């Protein structure tokens, strides 16, 4: 994976966003190449979740330009649908559908939005559950699973739509400590398979291992962006240094 040569799949140019009067994203410029992994970190409230939620339009940006797989994000519903077709997202709190079984959680998307035959969707769903090592739980309901299991189901649900880009919004922050590694392992595997990934996470061990680019955000701005060896080895900005010293002990 040659980062410098691959073509961009996500481009954010001069993106600004406000929550009422609060300027939450300030002049964001970020380009992500196909197959590359970007890890975004920063103190809470720095706008990192908002940034990735702009990529599949769960949040609307107010200025600047976001292009996802060739589709510029505007208020045009067709553009939003096109972007959501290629972008999968995994949330901090899993957000599985509690009234549907694990397998139904996976199949409802492709069956309804891509008119995939149910049997075919179920076959793929079981395959993906196998891949996230939870195949034996397909009958259960989300409430009967542990947090780590739920999050792996959520990853499988996002993969069901064959996304080109996966967004992870603090996927391990709501998990008990003993369940974090099972989720990170699945994510690392996904990375090895060549998925384009943008992860908001504080798991710096994972970041060091997987990331092509580290991005540090503070106060709505990208403060520093560098490959992980540079980022962790010789951070340039004082705010980055302060943040890293707190998080790495």
């Amino acid at each position: 994976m040659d980062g410098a040569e691959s073509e961009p799949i996500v481009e954010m140019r001069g993106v600004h966003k406000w929550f009422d009067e609060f300027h939450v994203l300030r002049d964001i410029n970020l380009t992500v190449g196909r197959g590359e992994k970007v890890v975004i970190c920063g103190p809470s409230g720095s706008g990192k979740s908002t940034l990735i939620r702009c990529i599949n339009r769960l949040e609307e940006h107010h200025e600047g330009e976001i292009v996802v797989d060739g589709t510029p994000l505007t208020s045009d519903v067709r553009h939003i649908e096109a972007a959501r077709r290629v972008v999968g997202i995994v949330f901090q709190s899993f957000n599985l559908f509690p009234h549907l079984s694990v397998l139904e959680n996976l199949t409802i998307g492709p069956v309804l939005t891509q008119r995939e035959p149910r049997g075919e969707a179920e076959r793929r769903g079981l395959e993906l559950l196998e891949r996230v090592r939870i195949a034996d739980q397909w009958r259960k309901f989300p409430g009967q699973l542990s947090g780590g299991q739920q999050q792996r189901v959520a990853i499988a649900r996002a993969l069901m739509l064959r996304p080109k880009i996966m967004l992870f919004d603090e996927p391990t922050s709501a998990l008990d400590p003993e369940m974090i590694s099972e989720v990170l392992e699945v994510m690392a595997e996904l990375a090895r398979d060549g998925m384009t990934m943008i992860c908001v996470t504080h798991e710096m061990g994972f970041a060091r291992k997987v990331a092509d680019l580290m991005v540090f955000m503070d106060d709505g701005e990208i403060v520093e962006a560098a490959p992980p060896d540079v980022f962790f080895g010789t951070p340039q900005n004082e705010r980055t240094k302060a943040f890293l010293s707190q998080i790495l002990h």
Partner: protein
Amino acid sequence: MAPLISHAVPVHSPRRARPIKAMPWLTWIRKRLFGGPWDALLTALAIWAIAVTLPRFVEWAFLEAAWSSHDPDACREAAGACWAVITEKHRVMLFGTFPYDQHWRAATAIAIMLGMMAVSAFHHLWSCRLAVAWLLAIAAVLALMLGGAFGLSPIGTHQWGGLPLTLMLFIGTVVGGVPAGILLALGRRSSLPAIGAVSIGFIEIVRGVPLIAILFMASLMIPLFMPEGVSVDKVLRAQIAMILFFAAYAAEVVRGGLAAIPRQQFEAADAIGLTYWQAHSRIILPQALAIALPALMNDIVRAFKNTTFVSIIGLFDMLRATSTALQDPRWTLFAPEAYLFLAALYFVFCSAMSAYARRIERGLPDGGRDGRS
């Protein structure tokens, strides 16, 4: 250094069932009925009240009652209740002015409606097939009641009455009112200002007006505004009024259920590309309705009792049919017995529905959130 005081004893204790402590009935009486001077006083008062009223009621209702005489004079001679009025007048009370020789049609309609209601109480039977069965049942009931097809003689809606009319109005109110209430609840939350304003306006106006006023409007004012020659059936007008009234209340209950669904569920549905209607029909409403169902059952029980209001605009529901039956001068005297019987009938229906509501409140159907997460 002082010796360590804290310690714990590691053991291996196998799991076993929790021991059950039974309370002897004498202890139960002492604790529950005479737990203190205030409890003892209340218990004594209650026993005194029962002792004073119950024997006289039993005497009136059973011991000295006249059970089955076709002669009202025999009833006059009896010191107690005259239950004969019910045997004598049950046909009118149950079927109103429906043609006498066609009562089997109305009775079949009652059986179909009660059967469908009973089946619907089992939520593991809820499916598309049950919805289709309901549509067929409603069609069958209308065919039986209206006639004019399948060799059945036509019967006008002005001849409908009694229990079939009560049940039809009730079922029509629920079947029409629940979907309308859901649409109003969604409308009230809509991001389109016009739809939101219309929904809020409708809900608040209807909730601010008594049902009787809406029924009067439907029966008296709608005909005034209709173009010449267009007339809407009186029963249908009452039915529409009751649906609108029910829908306004149901909308608020459903809105409460919708409000309980976390924003993240909408986001997750958006993220996998579901449209507004897909997200609502498959993700949001199943969860919201499961939450709203116990409260909705309250409105449904109330809708059953509200059917009695149509007697005011001249429809012969069970209540009106009974009062009509009592206009027979030979039996007028025995109105209390007839109304008591009617009250018992309403009580059976409403308490059955309330019991069902309590049951689903304890264990929500599959749409409910599993509290184990």
